[in-house]
């Protein structure tokens, strides 16, 4: 996008995000919703196959997840919602209609703040509604060489939530930030894995470009098939370029659906307005309207965790570094763990930084890692305290942590067993002098101004003391010995 066109045109972007919900069973039947590793067509029943005479029954957990999401996105939860039938004929749709929500969704009128380069944009959330997913079609070539389509009904009837934003987004970067932050939020509140690569999170964009100063019209282009946030950003950048070009040449922008093609790096027209669907929505007569009681909403609100934005603000206020906090709050279990470590007495700044870098490295290195973190937070707090007092060096803290993971022993016990850190002046001085004596080349290098020589000499001291020396003390000792000699 050229700077000239950026100033001459306004970009209007709205996002529609489909989210597969993490529930026990499917949206309207008892089939297990977790079909990830199942053989095709094994998680099916007459209801999700759309057989004659069967009826849908609403999955309460999916409704709760949707309300949770709405609350996290600052939405209103109206007292009455209903399901509607969205009619279209396609082989991946078992009943040839999809049970969705049309004019009375579960959540409306929310907002979501997105940060790009330190600037915050408030994106309106039009609605969050609930529907059922379709089956999956795979197009293959049969043994006789003819094209064939295979249907896997496992996904049919899975709970799918759609989050529709207001057209408040102005740049591809904002769109990407919205997507990334939304993904983190969905994981945070536990309603979805939100993995884009397996389709649990799918983002479509509506985008239009208008001459600056002119009113924003109705025509917009829907862009689909973006499999990553990067693809989302690239597709939008491409569309801005394409639509701006058309405007500059005085060509009209057609209302259409375009698909993003990753290999060519371009969007391609899939369907124009003349072929636009008339979905013939009408209220689903098999399901009575949903009465969402205040008690239910209050209970869900009360049970929601504090939102990542709030937690981050708190930690930053307790002088944890912003970058580390931003990284930490991508991961809800690790954040909860960190908060527990702080609660147990560690300082916020140290805990956040050390956990994001040191602790996470060790945690990820664990073989057969389960969902739970095996070390009690209080143990990490005590290790951090030992480290803060200087009784454990940074290096040693890492080793102690590894041993804690390996043996399940308490931090203090491990440190004790290793013996206390040597910081007694006399003992250390003797060792430092010995090292200086035995390494004349390094001493010469130091005098020649080679900084790494000091590191080498320190390493020698640490080796002899088996890491139990206070590094700060060692560095000072060696330096003063070398200077005074």
């Amino acid at each position, binding site marked *: 996008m050229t700077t000239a066109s950026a100033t001459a045109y306004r970009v209007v972007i709205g996002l529609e995000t489909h989210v597969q919900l993490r529930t026990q069973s499917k949206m309207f039947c008892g089939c297990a919703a977790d079909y990830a590793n199942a053989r095709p067509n094994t998680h099916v029943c*007459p209801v999700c*196959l*759309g*057989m*004659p*005479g*069967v*009826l*849908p*029954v*609403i999955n309460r957990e999916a409704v709760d997840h949707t309300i949770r999401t709405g609350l996290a996105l600052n939405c209103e939860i109206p007292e009455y919602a209903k399901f509607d*039938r969205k*009619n279209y*004929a396609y*082989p991946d749709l*078992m*009943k*040839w*209609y999809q049970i969705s929500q049309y004019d009375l969704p579960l959540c409306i009128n929310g907002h979501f703040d997105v940060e790009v380069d330190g600037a915050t944009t408030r994106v309106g959330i039009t609605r969050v509604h609930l529907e059922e997913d379709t089956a999956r079609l795979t197009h293959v070539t049969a043994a006789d060489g003819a094209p064939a*389509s295979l*249907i896997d009904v496992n996904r049919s009837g899975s709970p799918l939530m759609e989050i529709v934003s207001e057209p408040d987004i102005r740049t591809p970067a904002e769109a990407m930030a919205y997507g990334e932050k939304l993904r983190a939020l969905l994981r945070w509140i536990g309603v979805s894995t939100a993995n884009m690569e397996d389709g649990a999170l799918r983002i479509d964009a509506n985008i239009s470009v208008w001459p600056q100063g002119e009113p924003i019209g109705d025509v917009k282009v829907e862009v689909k098939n973006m499999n990553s946030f990067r693809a989302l950003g690239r597709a939008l950048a491409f569309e801005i370029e394409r639509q701006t070009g058309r405007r500059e040449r005085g060509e009209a922008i057609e209302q259409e659906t375009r698909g993003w093609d990753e290999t060519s790096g371009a969007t391609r027209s899939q369907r124009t307005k003349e072929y636009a669907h*008339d979905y*013939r*929505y*009408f209220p689903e*007569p*098999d*399901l*009575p309207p949903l009465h969402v009681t205040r008690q239910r909403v209050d209970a869900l609100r009360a049970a929601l965790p504090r939102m990542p934005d709030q937690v981050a603000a708190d930690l930053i206020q307790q002088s944890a570094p912003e970058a580390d906090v931003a990284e930490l709050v991508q991961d809800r279990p690790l954040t909860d763990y960190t908060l527990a470590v702080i609660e147990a007495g560690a300082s916020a700044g140290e805990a956040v930084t050390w956990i994001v870098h040191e602790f996470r490295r060790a945690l990820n290195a664990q073989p057969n890692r389960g969902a739970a973190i095996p070390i009690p937070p209080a143990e990490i707090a005590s290790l951090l305290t030992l480290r803060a007092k200087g009784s454990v060096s940074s290096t040693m803290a890492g080793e102690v942590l590894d041993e804690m993971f390996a043996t399940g022993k308490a931090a203090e016990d491990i440190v004790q067993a290793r013996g206390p850190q040597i910081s007694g002046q006399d003992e250390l001085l003797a060792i430092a002098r010995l090292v200086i004596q035995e390494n004349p080349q390094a001493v010469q290098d130091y005098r020649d101004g080679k900084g790494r020589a000091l590191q080498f000499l320190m390493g020698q001291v640490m080796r002899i003391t088996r890491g139990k020396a206070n590094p700060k003390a060692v560095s000072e000792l060696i330096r003063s010995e070398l200077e005074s000699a």
Partner: protein
Amino acid sequence: MADELYLLTLHAAARGLRSGTFSSVELTRSLLDRIESVDGRVGAYLTVTADLALEQAADADTRRASGRDGPLLGLPIALKDVLSTAGVQTTCASRILEGFIPPYDATAVTRLKNAGAVTLGKTNMDEFAMGSSNEHSGYKPARNPWNLDKVPGGSSGGSAAAVAADECLAALGSDTGGSVRQPAALCGCVGLKPTYGRISRFGLIAFASSLDQIGVLTKDVTDAALLLGVLAGHDPRDSTSADEPVPEYGGELNGDIGGLRIGVAPEYFGEGLDPQVGDSVRAAIDDLRGLGATEREISLPHTEYALPTYYVIAPSEASANLARYNGVKYGLSDPQATDVDEMMARIRGRGFGSEVKRRIMIGTFALSSGYYDAYYVRAQKVRTLIKSDFETAFQDVDVIAAPVVPSPAFDLGAKLDDPVAMYQSDIMTLPASLAGLPCMSIPCGFVDGLPVGLQLIAPPFAESRLLQAARAYERARGNLPAPLKAIDAA
């Protein structure tokens, strides 16, 4: 005696089984023989499951011998082919479902089986329950046992004909706009459509979901109460089924109706009503007054809008409900088709009959963008007005009495080319369907040798009151001086 067991009512047969006068196998055989001898002329059944019935009967006899009982133990009943039956072909009388064998029973069927019933087979009907004469069956028409040139009514025409021709002791039907009451009236049997939601719709193949309700066709009111008691109740698999207590319908049946307030609306006795049918229904109301009931005139001003309202709402829902029949998973298939769109178009073109196609098109149109507000939304508003007509009326009366059908059964073919004339046949049953109210048809006389029915309508979930009034009338009426049924002549 054994060869005439098929003539019995459910409750009389139950007495015979309990006292050991005959066995369920004997009873079932008698009915299968009767079917064998008359159904070629009546066409009431699409599928007769003789072996299954005899197996169930033998099982019932064994259970009884070991001291067990059940409300319907050993009693043979027919099922409208709109009800899913596990392992038994279920077609809705449509070619598009030819060969479809569901892996599940409708909840109503499960309840019958749990009560010990023997299932004789699947009865004929208008395709997907769309029609008022049974001529829209995709397989064959059913005929009126009183006069084989006449229609039995529809859409539960096969069930009504089977009961009237003594080819079952009782039958299940479904009523969307009158599909139980109208054929019951035309065939001279008792037809009960309970409150919407009283009986689970799970496994009832949908025509118009907000109107469809399973009903029963029986030889008398006592049998209707007996069956309703078995079928009624909440079903977690049907979210629209009512979580209302199920009273002892049989126990309250023979109560006194002194003081019962009967509402009569002039809207049901106007133009188009055959005067002899009108006289018959009025005479029945007089009989009820003779039992101590009082008559009050009421007004149901939106009655005339019921027909257009129904013919927007029902086809709209049907257009979505019938979308799933595309030949991919069950029923007809088309190996000749070269791509999926062609296959689906050919299956639907070949598999659906003309009336079904007409209603799918009407419904698709009514829901289309630009027409939705003018048709569907307006029809829903009128439906609310029709409902509130009844609510107002029921502040002053306990039941409403009316004719069921404007005239007795008509000739086969008479209305086949005139859909609107056919639709008129339902004008007196549609309002109660749109309002979701419990209602019945009880035989109240004959006109030109053909049965006429009295319709009673009650407030939601007042089936006990409805049955009580119907039973009181039935007792007062006594045996009607009936002509010989054509099926029994010669």
